[in-house]
């Protein structure tokens, strides 16, 4: 408990803990839900948590004018958008093929 209050005294630790919790929530969503779309949403939440980490390190790091963390986050947002488009396209394609988006029911590799 002492380390908890000590850690939260710095703003960086607060942001990192929020990002860790959001990452865990996204991971839980990707692991416990049956619907493929919800799994993709969980992955998006995990990516966003990583972005929050990058921005927090940029803000509280020693050289914010170098923009490294900021650039990483911006490119990560762009890549995540591409990933969402392809992932949801795949889900729609699988739904057309098997008539379900429930992952437990998609259990064969043969078309």
């Amino acid at each position, binding site marked *: 408990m002492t380390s908890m209050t000590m850690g939260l005294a710095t703003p960086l630790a607060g942001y990192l803990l929020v990002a*860790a919790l959001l990452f*865990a929530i*996204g*991971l839980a969503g990707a692991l416990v839900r049956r*619907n493929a779309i919800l799994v993709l949403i969980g992955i998006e939440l995990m990516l966003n948590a990583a972005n929050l980490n990058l*921005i927090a390190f940029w803000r509280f790091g020693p050289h914010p004018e170098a923009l490294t963390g900021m650039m990483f986050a911006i490119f990560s947002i762009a*890549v995540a958008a591409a990933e969402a488009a392809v992932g949801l396209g795949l889900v729609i394609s699988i739904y057309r093929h098997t008539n379900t988006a429930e992952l437990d029911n998609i259990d064969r590799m043969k078309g």
Partner: protein
Amino acid sequence: MSPIFYLLAALTLAGGLATVLLKHLVHAALAVTVAFAGLALLFLQLDAQFAGFAQILVYIGAVAILIVFAILLTHGADLPKEGVFSKTWLVGLIIAAGVFAVLGWAVLESVSAIPQQNTMPAVTVRDIGNALLDRYVLPLEIVALLLTAATIGAVIVAMHEKERPK
């Protein structure tokens, strides 16, 4: 820590939790939009205006709409009879809790060793634009190519496939 941070963190985490727990997919999509908005506000709170507005544009403006369209096209609004959680949900929950325990422990143990300054960084959008077209021009071009390829690929993957001869 300012009270605004606690408010925004609570909003973001509540949105994330609601996403995972809500049964209806459309409700989950709305909840994830709340989580994205909370994250954008957290970015603004971190003086990262450009990233915050990019987050609003890309996630709330595009990804949320895309998710709603995918729900629409896969009839995700109907509740499945077998329930929304997978058979092995307990294992998933344990894995997620373990990951959070390790991450939280690492953060609390190491954060005092990281040097941190608390002055507001004097970075404008003009600086970001200059950096994008100067030092980061190659990644920018690669991302442009990636987005083009991903868009074409998504369209091809989701296109109606022709009846195959069996």
